[in-house]
């Protein structure tokens, strides 16, 4: 069971988030300030941290910075009332993984935590397994049902990204920006060509489907 640390100075909010997470199959521990949270981190291992920004004493930024300096991989989610871009930028620059503005929707928190944990696992192993399909980031190889499917590096990167975030639609530019060299002047429509090739190569694969979303972008849907 995943261990989650919730750092939030409002007692009621802390308790409600913890009981929600405990009821959703996680093991959540609540702490009311950063000092107590440090102690909890010494005593236990956690898989994810949910933290407020504005807290008495050590604030969320300071806390996240310290945690990041000790642990590069643990996902940190900020849960805060500040919704301006500057606060978000500051958080992401410290190395947090996600940001939610209060009042938070608990169902959305659940979804985001799930996604963060899945990504953390994918990032740690650099491998993806969906049914009979195995993708290996290090070798850039795709094996379906024991048979290797030849792919170019770009095709592999696009597919890996889409499958890392199933059901999330990416715009062509988002799919491109990440992997294409900045210098190459490829029109976003080039992505369409790669998608056609990918669909052709994986047409017998029944585990997922690559869908076009209303001319806006693409997403991978798991079956």
């Amino acid at each position, binding site marked *: 069971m995943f261990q989650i640390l919730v750092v939030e100075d409002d007692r009621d909010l802390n308790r409600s988030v913890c009981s929600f997470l405990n009821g959703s199959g996680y093991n959540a521990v609540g702490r009311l300030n950063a000092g107590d949270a440090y102690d909890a981190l010494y005593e236990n291992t956690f898989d994810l941290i949910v933290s407020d920004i504005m807290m008495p004493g050590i604030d969320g930024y300071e806390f996240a910075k310290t945690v990041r300096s000790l642990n590069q991989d643990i996902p940190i989610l900020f849960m805060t009332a500040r919704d301006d871009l500057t606060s978000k930028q500051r958080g992401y620059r410290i190395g947090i993984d996600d940001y939610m*503005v209060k009042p938070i929707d608990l169902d959305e928190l659940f979804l985001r935590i799930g996604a963060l944990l899945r990504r953390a696992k994918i990032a740690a192993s650099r491998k993806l397994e969906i049914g009979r399909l195995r993708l290996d980031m290090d070798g850039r190889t795709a094996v379906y049902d024991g048979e290797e499917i030849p792919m170019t590096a770009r095709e592999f990167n696009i597919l890996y990204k889409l499958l890392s975030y199933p059901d999330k639609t990416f*715009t062509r*530019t988002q799919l491109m920006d990440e992997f294409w060299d900045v210098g190459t002047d490829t029109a*976003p429509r080039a992505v369409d060509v790669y998608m056609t090739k990918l669909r052709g190569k994986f047409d017998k694969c029944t585990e997922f489907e690559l869908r076009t979303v*209303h001319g806006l972008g693409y997403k991978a849907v798991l079956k």
Partner: protein
Amino acid sequence: MKKRGSHPVWSYFLAFFLLTSFVITSSMLLFLNYFAKSAGVEFTEENLFTAAIVTFGNAVFLSLICTAVDIFRRKVMVDRPVRAIVEAARRITNGDFSARISSKTALGASEGFEEIIGCFNTMAAELSGVETLRADFISNVSHELKTPMAVIQNYGTLLQDPELTDGQRAEYAKAITRQSRRLAGLVTNILKLDRLENQQIYPSAKRYNLGEQLAECLLQFEDTWEENGIDIETDIEEDVFIESDGELMSLVWSNLFSNALKFTETGGKVSLSLKTEGDLAVVRVSDTGCGISPEVRGHIFEKFYQGDTSHAAQGNGLGLALAKRVTDITGGEISVESEPGIGSTFTVKLGRAL
């Protein structure tokens, strides 16, 4: 109150006296000099002394008349209008926005007062308009805030009853969740609008790809259109760049998209198009929803105005006010066309970065 900067009467008198004496003395000297030379008359000291006294008396008399006339002129042409303006300004300072200056005050007043009084009255009218809006705004805000709070409070009380069935309990809890969500959305929007209106966030303009932003923004509503079975049509011209504050502009798009989706029934269609027209980037968001009547259209960008009260629970009447405010700040233009029963199209025009 002390009379502002007014000099005592004797100072006016002194000024007039010096002036009159100077004029009379100079005229007398010139005249006598010329007269004595041409007529060859010699004046005795006695003659001169009498003449000097009479002349002095004359100067005093003329100065008195001038002072009296001047005091009267000031009373009518300056003091009276100034007093009226000061009085009206004081009433406005004390919160009485109905204060106006009668145009009769300008009769006979010095030049310029008529203009000042005109300006003053326009300002007062403007202020009382703002005041009415503010009062409406406050009553709207308190209504919108208090309704969900009342519901939450009531259901919270009801939930404490140990006799409740599980079904009732779940239903009450759901109502609390729904209302607190509404409250949360409202508070977020009020704060955003307030921040925009007080200009605490200044737009930080950057050049970016508008089509990409529109696509990313619209994709945030993917779940909504899938759940409600709404068709999406997009026609986005590639490589259209604008120079603007991306975070602010995304407020406009997300409000337009959420409105379009909210008012479109299952099976309907929402379309998004981005086109260039000369130097402008033109974004159109259309829906096949219930449309907006002409009366409603005139008020649609006002705070807390809701055209259709049956949809009131889903919105808070601030979305379009926010969108309008952002386009105002960023130098864009927002407009709406609509036909009741057929649908609406919102158009946003922005300057293109070439």
